[in-house]
């Protein structure tokens, strides 16, 4: 399959915040590599700096130390080049716009306002046909999240960054959207980084699962997920899927217990 998108190389990144007079180190010595067209899931305990890491890659924030590079471009250059698509746990839709015009917002911002074909395509891809004229307040949580995903994809970005986009949804909707995310990724081949709390979700959709330590966050384990694609729900019931989930879960528990752990690769 033809792969497109930008690779991401994070080397020795640290980020410290001033919080109520205190210095809080959110990330320290973060290293990660996502190949072009790869799908990487980032998992870790609450408050470990996953979201901070993603914001740094998106160019929404700048690291205090270390470098981030996407095939020769810095995150800020990627952002200014409008090559990034983002979706957060809060769908962050404009309540006064419809499904169509919310998706079109991204196109307007990159100067392709009249590309109605791209919008129609995305509406279909995320399964929102018939709801084009609906406002966010008239949609369910899952539908709103689909709009956010469609908006993040409509500009055909080289890098797709998802910060727990399905975190607030029920298990059934979540599984459905995971299937669609996988399908969309397979069709488009955009480099994707997904931040999530859910181990099965990470194992189900990603090529590689990176486990982070508690704050200050760094990568403490890397699991390559070798399941063939397309992955279907039957996979969820297999022993090899459970084994993989167990393995990631074990790394996660180890990481929670101790901060000073060297990089391991149990996979």
């Amino acid at each position, binding site marked *: 399959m033809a792969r497109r998108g930008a690779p991401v190389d994070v080397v020795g990144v640290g980020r410290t915040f001033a919080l109520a007079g205190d210095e809080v180190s959110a990330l320290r010595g973060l290293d990660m590599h996502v190949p072009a067209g790869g799908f990487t899931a980032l998992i870790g305990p609450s408050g470990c700096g996953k979201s901070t890491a993603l914001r740094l890659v998106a160019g929404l924030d700048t690291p205090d130390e270390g470098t981030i590079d996407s095939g020769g471009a810095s995150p800020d250059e990627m952002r*200014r080049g409008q090559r990034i698509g983002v979706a957060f746990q809060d769908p962050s839709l404009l*309540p006064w716009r419809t499904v169509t015009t919310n998706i079109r917002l991204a196109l307007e911002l990159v100067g392709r306002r009249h590309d109605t074909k791209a919008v129609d395509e995305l509406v279909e891809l995320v399964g929102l046909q018939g709801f084009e004229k609906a*406002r966010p307040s008239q949609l369910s949580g899952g539908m709103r999240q689909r709009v956010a995903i469609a908006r993040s994809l409509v500009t055909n970005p080289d890098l797709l960054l998802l910060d727990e986009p399905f975190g607030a949804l029920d298990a059934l909707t979540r599984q459905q959207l995971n299937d669609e995310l996988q399908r969309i990724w397979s069709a488009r081949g955009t480099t994707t980084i997904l931040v999530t709390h859910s181990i099965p979700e990470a194992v189900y959709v990603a090529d590689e699962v990176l486990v982070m330590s508690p704050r200050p966050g760094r990568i403490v384990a890397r699991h390559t997920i070798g399941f063939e694609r397309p992955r279907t729900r039957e996979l969820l019931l297999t022993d090899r899927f459970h084994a993989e989930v167990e393995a990631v879960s074990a790394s996660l528990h180890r990481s929670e217990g101790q901060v000073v752990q060297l990089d391991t690769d149990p996979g």
Partner: protein
Amino acid sequence: MSPAADTAATATARPAGGSRLDRVPPRLLSSAVGIAVLLLWELLARTVYAGSYRLSPPTAVVVEFFEFRGLYLRNLWHSTKTAAWGFLWGNLAAMALAVTATLVPWLRRSIGAVVLTVFCLPFIAIAPILRLITGPGNATPIALSALAVVFTTYVAALLGFDLAPGSALDVIRSYGRGRLTAFRNVRVRASVPALFAGLQIAAPAAFLGAVVGEFTGAHRGLGILTVRALGALQTDRIWVIAVMSTIVATGGYLAIGALGRYLCPWSPALDVGAVPVPRIEPGLLNRLAGLAAPIAVVFVFWYAFLWVFGIEPFFAKTPVDVWAELFSVSEAPETRSIIFGALGTTMWTTSLGYVVGLVGALASALVFILVPWLERALMPIAVALRSIPIIVTTPVIILFVGRGLLTTTAIVAVMSFFPTLVNCYTAMTRTPEGILDVLKSYDATSAASVRNAYLPTSVPALLASARIAVPTSLLGATVAEWLATGDGIGAVMVTAFTRNDFKILWVSVAVLTIVAVIGYWLVAAFELRTLERMAPGTSR
């Protein structure tokens, strides 16, 4: 999101300003601006405006105050005492009305109509009418002061009672208890933050009521001192009074704000100025009932007022009398031409100031959002000025602008500017961070951020401010006309007042009140339609 990530989000809440001024502490910046303003004021007063009777230099204001401090402090104390009594009675009445409206929902619309009508009364012109009942003493300023706080406190208390969490009310209901228990156990507690937000606005409003009451013939107080100083062109004296009023009114505003924060530290800052209007149920019958019942209640109150106080027919005019004066007696055409001719002038100057104030406020809020260091330098001053009852400083504006038609426009513009600016800016800062992040991730221009985020998020606040500004603008206009310009309906009223022509006075009051109520409801209808169109289902 982790606390650290929260901080990161806050850091990007506004477009990144590269200015070095962004790192100057806000207090330092606004103090510097304050000192610069004082220096410029002194300089202008000593050079360009020297001998013009328009602007007193700050040093002269201080000297004047200390020279006559006995006089000033005596009158300030008197007006403050008046305002305190008005504050007490007005707030008690407002809370009683709000409790009734919450416990007896079908009375709510009618109570709301009465309270709104009171808010729309041209205060300066009803002072002579109130004086008929209360006599020459201090009761009229106290009554006006009380009337001036009823609306804001009522709206705030009602909002507070409604903010009670529905789930908590359901718990009470699930134990088979009724409205009264729910009210005692849940609503009263839930209302405290909103109530304090309302009381905070009520403090300067009470001071305003007291001073306006004193404008029309009290024996003591800052109001009558101002009127005399205006007549004698004592520029320094007028400036001293304006500065003292500002300090006292702002002090009350800040003190109640601090008390509110002390009593409910868990509560976020509430903005009572931006409360949306309640929606009228659809359907022609509901609409008619929604309109007719409140009007009927207002007329009942009008008759009840005349009957309870037993005012002599020479002074007391019923709705029927007012109608006759305007449409059936032989002088009716003449009355109509006087009243509506003057009303036309007032409407023209007022609308101009109203539009200038609102548009200017929105534009300034956008500038503040896009240029953070400017916001940090000027916003504290804007917030302080917002708490001032601008009407109290009317004499100063009259001195500065002169006594022409523009004076009315200037006062109305200033009056609508500050609250709208603060409300719109606050709304813009509450733009969801996720939306700003999405915009930033596409490197959106400032223009695109304004169009897609800041402007739309400030629309509800803008419309709510525009609605509230209708009655306050007319109030400001009539005070300016009464005291200075000699134009418009305010001048018609002051002439009628000096000639004891109570017919014209009542007709003017009635017409002005109706105009203010209609204006308020026109903006409210536009507000509801716009909010419903922008984001269906999100307006109340």
